[in-house]
């Protein structure tokens, strides 16, 4: 395979179709006729950030309820039409945005779009369905309370983002879900749902113009007067010292451990060097340096890795491990030592070269399925990366130097100011 062919496989201005509708909706499409299927996904501005504290989980409840009935169709009818053709469509809430994702055979794209527009524009929130859903959400929360990984993650956010909206779980608490009324849902939908801020990506066996035409027909007429926007994010107070919390869950055979700190925002100039540094720290090969020390050398965990979560606001940079309850201390010690080494010594030239090759080489793999390409298009739009981002990607990766990784590590990671969360016995 020559390089020209390779580059052609990456999405770029030549094959990404982008159109902004008069009502503000952004359409992104790219064709792929290799399989007769199509993916449709996107996001809109109605995330959990908008939840009042006493109604935490509201945005999530609303997204779960959108397909429980619309003016035109009942819950059963909606899913009957989808499932009869092997299609799927679902909504989920995030902190800043809520999102949707669906797939079908190309011949059924119109159905997906019609159901999307009905769910977004005319949900009816039938009372009986709300109660069924409430029981399902409450059961989900009861299961969450028993999940060491979920609970460690929740406690970690509470430490790291103390006093900031990011400290709150998007799916709420049993008491908030218990108290939400149908009217809360209706009001939330009325105030925050609208075409402004809605981005939709369609990738698969459909011509871009045809996909765009179908989107316009389904959503082009959506108008909402005075659609409210999310409030500004308050400033985040960084940790002044290491804070540890242990959340007890009795009867479990494994504890989950998270150790971390704040990471860059997606748009920060340090994002790429942090991303490369993180790969060396806890991803590359069998989970990077962390995996090598905690899993390979000490045999303490089946999984031990680091991850970077970078979005619109301040992110997190964290190490996760699942260990025997008796080994929590030992594993924590090893992880903190690795973080210290990381900020003291940085990375070697060989490690940097390996990770650069890994980032560049794996890109086509991440873009092979329609879902992968749709995510890439949404990523470009959300963080204003430019339609040629994936074609410039190799250059961006290669620009990063050893000192950039070291400076970024030092900027974000202070081994004396860490959030440490443990959930387990």
């Amino acid at each position, binding site marked *: 395979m020559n390089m020209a062919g*390779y580059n052609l496989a990456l999405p770029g201005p030549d094959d990404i179709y982008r159109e902004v509708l008069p009502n503000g909706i952004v359409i992104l499409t790219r064709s792929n006729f290799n*399989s007769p299927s199509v993916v449709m996904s996107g996001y809109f501005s109605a995330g959990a950030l908008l939840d009042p504290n006493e109604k935490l989980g509201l945005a999530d409840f609303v997204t779960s309820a959108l397909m429980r009935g619309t003016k035109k169709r009942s819950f059963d009818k909606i899913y009957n039409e*989808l499932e009869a*053709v092997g299609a799927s469509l679902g909504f989920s809430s995030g902190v800043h945005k809520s999102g949707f994702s669906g797939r079908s055979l190309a011949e059924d794209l119109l159905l997906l779009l019609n159901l999307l527009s009905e769910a977004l524009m005319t949900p009816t929130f039938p009372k009986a369905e709300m109660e*069924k859903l409430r*029981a399902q959400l409450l059961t989900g929360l009861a299961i969450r309370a*028993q999940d060491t990984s979920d609970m460690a993650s929740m406690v970690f956010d509470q430490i790291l983002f103390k006093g900031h909206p990011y400290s709150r779980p998007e799916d709420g608490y049993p008491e908030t879900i218990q108290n939400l009324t149908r009217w809360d849902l209706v009001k939330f939908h009325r105030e925050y749902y609208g075409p402004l801020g809605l981005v939709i990506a369609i990738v698969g066996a459909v011509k871009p113009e045809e996909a765009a035409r179908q989107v316009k027909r389904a959503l082009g007429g959506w108008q909402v007067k005075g659609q409210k926007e999310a409030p500004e994010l308050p400033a985040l107070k960084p940790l002044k010292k290491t804070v540890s919390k242990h959340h007890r869950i009795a*009867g479990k*055979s494994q504890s989950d451990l998270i150790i971390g700190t704040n990471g860059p925002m997606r748009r920060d100039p340090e994002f790429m060097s942090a991303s490369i540094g993180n790969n060396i720290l806890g991803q590359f090969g069998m989970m990077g340096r962390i995996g090598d020390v905690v899993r390979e050398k000490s045999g303490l965990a089946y999984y031990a890795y680091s991850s970077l979560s970078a979005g619109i606001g301040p992110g997190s940079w964290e190490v996760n491990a*699942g260990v025997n309850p008796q080994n929590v201390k030992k594993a924590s010690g090893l992880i903190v030592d690795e973080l210290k080494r990381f900020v003291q010594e940085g990375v070697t030239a060989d490690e940097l070269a390996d990770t650069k090759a890994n980032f560049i080489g794996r890109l086509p793999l991440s873009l092979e399925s329609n879902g992968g390409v749709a995510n890439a298009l949404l990523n470009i739009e959300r963080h204003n990366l430019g339609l040629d981002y994936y074609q410039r990607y190799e250059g961006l990766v290669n620009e990063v130097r050893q000192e950039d990784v070291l400076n970024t590590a030092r900027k974000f990671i202070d081994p004396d100011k860490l959030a440490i969360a443990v959930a387990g016995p």
Partner: protein
Amino acid sequence: MMDTLTQTTLSNGLKVLLKEIHTAPIISSWVWYRVGSRDEVQGRTGISHWVEHMQFKGTDQFPANVLDKSISREGGSWNAFTYIDWTAYFETMPADKIDLALRLESDRMVNSRFDTNEVASERTVIISEREGNENEPLFRLGEVLQQTAFRIHPYHHEVIGDMADLRVITREDLYDHYNAFYVPNNAVMAVAGDFDTKTMLARIKELFEPIPAGSEPARLAREEPPQNGEIRLSVEGPGETTYVQVCYRFPNAAHPDFFPLSVLDSLLAGPSNLNMFSGGISNKTSRLYRALVDKELAVSVQGGAQATIDPFLYTISMTIHPKRKPEEALAALDREIKRAKEEKVLKEEINRAIKQARALFAYGSENITNQGFWLGYSEMFADYNWFQTYLDKLSAVTVKDIRRVANEYFGPQSRVVGTYAPTNGRP
């Protein structure tokens, strides 16, 4: 577009399947071994999975720390899976880098070191993996169900193995298991993606054909006798959520009844997705969802058929509604099973199941790794023709077939019903 498929067997018995797909500069290479937990005796349970872990611990040519880095450096994605029937290894790489994967797989088919220190550190990693599984209520319940459903057959135990065995299996045990089963005549090589078949086959021959054939691995022949009467069991554990699982005995994948049962599974619980690298669809209009979740007896219901070498289980899992009792959900399930046995399904319902399967196939074919997966996977329990004719076989299913298999396989006398009863904070 037509993809070129080539099947051949090398002189040492290694079966090779090659499928050219020129949609992206990617190649996915798979090696499948006919070894899994069904080949394990008591005292050695979990050994196949442990051998799989040791395959990442290096050979002389690719020592452990070199092995994982070399694939990642080239932008590859790789992993391995151990199942009840098989163990599979794959690398999906940029097309011009695939040679590394081929060299690695041919090397570790015979030259893995099984270093004593590595065995020791991997022992605790696998124990940790098992402890993570034990955190999950459905693992705790599923394990007991499986060992109850299979008293004789080695499907008795979980792939991960029993803790008692994980503590005592030795380096020699592992190495013997490796030598017995990792022979070319017990393996299938499957490669899909952007290559030229002639060149690829020549390279595979060059690398793999020098590996001598081994003795045909001995198989355990412990057929499960018929079950005489329903078995009920319960498992207690932390939490406040009750789960119920009901297992019926299903035929092996190569059995003709597998197809009408797949259609029936679609009607009852939504289509089972056999793709490993592509998600499924919702099941909110399936008969069981309507009867259980819509009626607020359960908050979720799932059914799953699996393609296996020997007859295995069809498992229906229910998460019970917090205000309901497991018996109420079970009674509703029984009404639906009765309906499937007594009432004719509509031809439309069958057509719908076929369309669902067609869509799932299309989603799976977006992805080269998934295509490579199917080439070898279907060989493990049937052959690639099974996959190629799957939709045709579903299309041939009649209303009468469905009723017959509902009566034949969904009898209460051969099922196992398990409940996970939460202790709700009680010690």
